């Protein structure tokens, strides 16, 4: 196939991928704890063509034309190489519901699912029939415990929705500040947010090296100091302790203006790429006319 066609095709594909990303961000503009995704494009040279070129080097002096040619450039394609999730905090929304929690600063709640322990910033929890704190999916919200421990042993039993939570995530019975300690949220700090993989339902799966290593046997990573300049791409700095707010939710951090602008841009770039594709098609049609009389 014509190299130019490949390049424009890759451009069109990349832009359609971009639109899919934007669509998901906008669809989740009202999802508590959602973090917007961004696609990053990179130019890639097709290695195969390079090796072809090298194999075809003629055993003679280069002509001026050959020296001037930038063979291979036109075969470059654009790839959607990687993405990053914008880990900045969303707006904090006061709900007044005692079962809503928001984390300020670098911190995630831990949730026990059938696929292992997941992290989440969506703190809209509910109490199940057994009095345990669970997510809307019915997964247990976890208290501190060893990483490999049985999640059910780390469940937070609150009994009813009548409890209060201090800024460190300690849960006390009754609506007044303090009281009998019922449990504690396990708050996990992330040191490399690029190693978090989205798992749907507002969950993130922590790949190796994602979270700050826990001090002691599964103790919450509160107060673990890491040089904030080393990892700029996280929610606040790991040097500060996450703060839990009861009766608040962290809204989605999708910026609607930015997404709509990106949408327009993606559509126009897609159009330009398809326009070029059309141009290349016409060129090859004309080329096939050349030999005719």
């Amino acid at each position, binding site marked *: 196939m014509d190299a130019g066609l490949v390049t424009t095709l890759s451009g069109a594909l990349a*832009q359609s991928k971009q639109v899919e990303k934007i669509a998901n961000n906008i*669809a989740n503009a*009202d999802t508590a704890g959602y973090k917007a995704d961004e696609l990053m494009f990179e130019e890639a040279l097709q290695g195969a063509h390079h090796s072809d070129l090298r194999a075809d080097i003629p055993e003679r002096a280069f002509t001026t034309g050959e020296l001037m040619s930038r063979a291979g450039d036109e075969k470059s394609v654009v790839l959607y190489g990687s993405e990053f999730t914008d880990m900045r905090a969303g707006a904090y929304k006061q709900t*007044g519901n005692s079962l809503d929690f928001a984390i300020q600063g670098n911190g995630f709640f831990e949730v026990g699912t059938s696929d292992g322990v997941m992290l989440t910033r969506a703190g809209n929890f509910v109490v*199940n029939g057994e009095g345990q704190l669970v997510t809307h999916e019915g997964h247990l919200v976890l208290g501190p415990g060893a990483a490999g421990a049985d999640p059910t042993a780390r469940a937070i039993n609150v009994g009813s929705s009548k409890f209060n939570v201090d800024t460190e995530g300690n849960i006390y019975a009754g609506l007044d500040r303090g009281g009998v300690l019922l449990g504690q949220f396990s708050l996990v700090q992330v040191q490399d947010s690029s190693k978090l*993989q989205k798992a749907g339902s507002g969950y993130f799966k922590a790949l190796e090296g994602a979270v700050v290593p826990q001090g002691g046997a599964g103790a919450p990573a509160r107060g673990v100091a890491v040089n904030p300049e080393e990892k700029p791409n996280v929610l606040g700095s790991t040097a500060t302790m996450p703060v839990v707010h009861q009766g608040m939710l962290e809204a989605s951090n999708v910026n609607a203006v930015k997404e709509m602008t990106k949408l327009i841009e993606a559509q126009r770039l897609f159009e330009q790429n398809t326009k070029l594709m059309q141009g290349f*098609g016409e060129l090859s049609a004309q080329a096939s006319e050349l030999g005719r009389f």
Partner: protein
Amino acid sequence: MLNSLNTSATGMTAQVKQTEVISNNIANADTVSFKRSRADFQDLLYQTDKGPGSATSATTTNPTGVQTGLGVKVTGVTREYKQGSARPTGRDLDVMIGGDGFFSVQLPTGEVAYTRDGNWKLDGEGRVVTGEGFPIIPEVIVPPETRRLTVAPDGTFQAEITPNDVQQLGQIQLTTFMNPSGLSAEGSNLFRQTPASGEAVTGNPGEQGFGRLQNQYLEASNVNSVAEMTELIRAQRLFEMNSKVMQTSDQMLGTLNQVK
């Protein structure tokens, strides 16, 4: 085909749900003891185009990968059991619960339903019934010659026949649940117990964990109309934004069709 068509469709569906919930809240803004609901959303599963850690060359790996989300889903409609404000009515058979708990109501089917609506009436036999005519539990029968009825904060129902003849008619009890948001709403201000709500715990008003009763008051709905209207605007604009993405995806497919 572009996934974004389906993704934006899930976004539109979610905002339609949000609008439905808001419209029910606003419609019930003046319903006694109504508790507002809110729709909760979560992101759908992700399609992995390129896993984090996939090889980019013989020695390097991709640090992040590319995962594309497929939209949003409604995970639940949560009822918020915040106390509604007290509305003085001056009527003897109006009772408000200040704090936790539900009144129990006997349904004609023999089942028990729960309500916070204490806007009671008397039926032909002098029984205290709800607006629908369902008797409250425990049954209270008011003597016909009663001049004045009072309900004490601890639930004691008293009938004053003459200033010197005050009869005790019974004591109203309250029921609490571990997870009141798990109760199933049955309409007519009634709720039914479900496995998610947990076991019903019954006690006297004013005891630990139970609210106190307030006679001649009704609990207003806890709907804040300003907040609902703001949410409504949000829902409409987000719906529009999703439809714009859908339109754009459609136009892109249109552009593609013109290539040949």
